[in-house]
């Protein structure tokens, strides 16, 4: 049935070389495709090029060679202004170190992307209230980031990523700094969004449990495609299969900590 789906991200033979005192090939002839509505995890050992891949998809970085197509648009054809606006309207970001703006309250952090586009105040308020309900942030809307628990902060960040109904959510180790309960909360939230809103999510992660929430896991190593597996009926077996690939992949001990 694959030909029926529309792909939102298409990477073809993407290579990224960092010039510098030491030349470094971060990605090498990598093909990648994400269909609309998919929830994808990217895994790989440290230094395998996960973050570079995510940066290229998020149009922060341009490939040295190869073709990138996001939602039918080639980022390289846009100038930096158009790119910024493109990101603002189509992407939502969730970071490992959460990166809420310290000076803003929870509510203000969530509404920030909308204020930049100058939406009517009523509309903004309506969207914040609805999201706050879904993310159970209602009670803490007026707190500041330094008064939040890790889970609350990351939920706020997810709220900020969702407020403008983006087509694509890019998450870089969203559970990296969270305890297991908060991590579970955030992951369930992401998969709920993925199922109800049909929002595409691409998530870089080290954590096989996090990856087990996804539809598909892409493994890369040294900047190249290594393997790819799809989920099955049970999360438990999917998790086992992920672990199997990881053990083949080697990498650092950190990746095997679940064994």
């Amino acid at each position, binding site marked *: 049935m694959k030909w029926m789906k529309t792909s939102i991200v298409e990477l073809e033979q993407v290579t990224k070389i960092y010039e510098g005192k030491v030349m470094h090939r971060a990605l090498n002839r990598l093909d990648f495709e994400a269909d609309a509505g998919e929830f994808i995890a990217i895994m790989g050992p440290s230094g395998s090029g996960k973050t570079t891949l995510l940066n290229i998809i998020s149009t922060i970085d341009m490939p040295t060679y190869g073709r990138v197509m996001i939602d039918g648009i080639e980022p390289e054809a846009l100038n*930096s202004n158009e790119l*910024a606006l493109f990101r*603002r*309207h189509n*992407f939502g970001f969730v*970071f490992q170190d959460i990166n809420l703006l*310290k*000076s*803003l309250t929870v509510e203000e952090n969530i509404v920030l992307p909308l204020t930049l586009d*100058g939406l009517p105040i009523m509309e903004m308020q309506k969207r914040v209230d609805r999201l706050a309900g879904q993310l159970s942030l209602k009670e803490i809307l007026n707190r500041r980031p330094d008064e939040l628990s890790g889970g609350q902060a990351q939920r706020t960040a997810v709220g900020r990523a969702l407020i403008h109904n983006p087509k694509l959510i890019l998450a870089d180790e969203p559970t990296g700094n969270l305890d297991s309960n908060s991590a579970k909360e955030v992951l369930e939230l992401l998969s709920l969004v993925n199922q109800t809103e049909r929002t595409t999510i691409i998530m870089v992660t080290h954590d096989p449990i996090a990856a087990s929430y996804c539809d598909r896991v892409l493994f890369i190593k040294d900047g190249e495609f290594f393997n790819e597996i799809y989920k099955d009926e049970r999360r438990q077996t999917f998790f086992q299969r992920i672990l199997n690939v990881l053990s083949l992949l080697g990498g650092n001990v950190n990746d095997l900590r679940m064994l």
Partner: protein
Amino acid sequence: MTFRQFAFRNVMRNRRIYAAFFMASVFSVMVFFLFSMLLFHPSIEGSALQDIAVLGMGIAEIILYIFTMFFLFYSMRAFLQARTKEFGILLHLGMEKRQLHRLIFIETFIIGAASIGVGTFLGYMFSKFFFMVVKRIILLPALPLYFSWEPFALTVGAFLSLFVIISWVAPVFIRTGKLDELIRGEGGGMEVHGFSKIRGVIGLVLLGLSYSMAAFTSNSIVIGLIFLLPPLVTLGTYLFFTDSLPFILHLFKVRKEFYWRHFRLLAVSEGVIRLKENARMFFIVTIVSTIAFMSVGILASLTSFASQYREMNPLGLVYESFPGNELEQDHINRLGYELRKNEIEYTYVRFPVLKQRSSLTDYDVMILKLSSVNRLSKSFGNQAFELLEGEALFLPPTASTFEQLNRQSVRTVLEESGIEVRINGAYPYQLFPAHAIGTNAIILNDADYEKLALLVEPSSIYHAFDIPDWQKTKNIGLTIEHSVTESILTGTRSKLHFTFDNPGLNYSVIRTTFTLLLFIGLLLAGVFLLAAGSFIYFRLYTSLDSDRKQFDVLRRMGITDREFKKIVNRQLIPQFFVPWGVALVHSSFAFLSLQVIWDALAEISIVRELIMVLVGFTALQVIYFYLIRWRYLAHIRSPE
């Protein structure tokens, strides 16, 4: 790598942070050195004017020294606190506290030595130019560049001692808390969101009260205000930055329809944080800027005093002789001779001043003859007046009293002689300096004056010299001037039965003094300006890391370059211009009350000079803003 090399490399690699601090220090050293070059100049030897110059520069040096001390203390503290994390790592790696102190001592000392070296060098480079300016101001024939050890010794000695003191004290500023807190940097979360409404309101009330007092002051209470207002305003300013401004911004934030608009959300919330973190610094910058504005403004207003001096002293030379003066004819002849010898054109009019008691007011009235007044007036290019017998005119003592006297028409009898006159209106031209012929004087028609002159001896004789080239007279009548000075010094002033006034000479002294003070003041203000900017730059630098992170988030989120610039503008502009604006408002109100003093003294307006000073400072500040924004943007965009 030895310990000293480590310290040296620390300085070299932190040079971007040190840059503004270094610049301000260098400038301070340079100005100090220039002043000392003049202090020790071999061609300066004790004329009154040169004494003023030396005294002015000496005082300026002391001010500069004290100010630099505070500046260094403050900067050093901010700088060391910004490096808390680095020190935490060093301690973690096992450096002893004692060694850390030595490290900071050496670093501070390197910066100090470099600023002194560069400052003195630049100072010497610029001293030729500096001497050219000073030479013109204090009217010396020559002020050559010289080389002597003394100015070098003074500058190096003064600043070296300063830096040694700072280097010793600096380690005290390091936060020595728990190691892990040091390493995490930033330290304990300051309560940055709170403010007190009451204190905020008190701040606004204090400022409002001071402003209205300054604006509506009258001559009688202005002296009291001079002592009352500065503490009030200082306290008010402090509360304004710590509580009133956050309070006002809070009121703004509550209204989402204003607050949730484009960049306001980011700019205002960031602004509040910066404000709270830096309230004390803004307070200091405001007070320093106010003092700088005030001192330059006051000096400029004194210069304005000099330029309006001519209007107050329309006559070139004035010699007034009282009964019993044997030297009168001799002096007048000498003045005339010296004027002719120096080829200075002049008109001489002799006014015998008669004194009578007015029956109407029971006060003494000074009486001048109409034809003499007309003769003097003609040399100014004015029309002659005519009066019939029995008529007279008021002679207004100052220009501002003309309107009022001109409306009056009175009849009176000059009591001693019994002559009846009708005084109708006032004489419109200002021929004499203020109050020259007393406060109560009239111009009498010639016929009545002649009658009166037969009956009474003149109470004094007023010799007026009208000289169009009045500034050329500074070498005229020096012997007369000298005998007056001598009599004052020996306490025999009462034995001299004359006064002598040479506005040309007085003017050159006044003008020179004020120009000199203004010049010194501008140099000092320059140092203040650089220092204030350096504080701000410093603060920006210490928060650069977190700013950079924030920039990265915004960039991903999709903020265009122009939008980012706008956000930075909205964050930087208040930091630069709010203290500036408050200082401007402070000094404007201060000048309002100053104008009251000037009105009482000399009826002059200082508005024009003030506007020039304020515009000049603002222009400098704008340039400084763009310079620092350029650096800030460059740093924040570069990844590390």
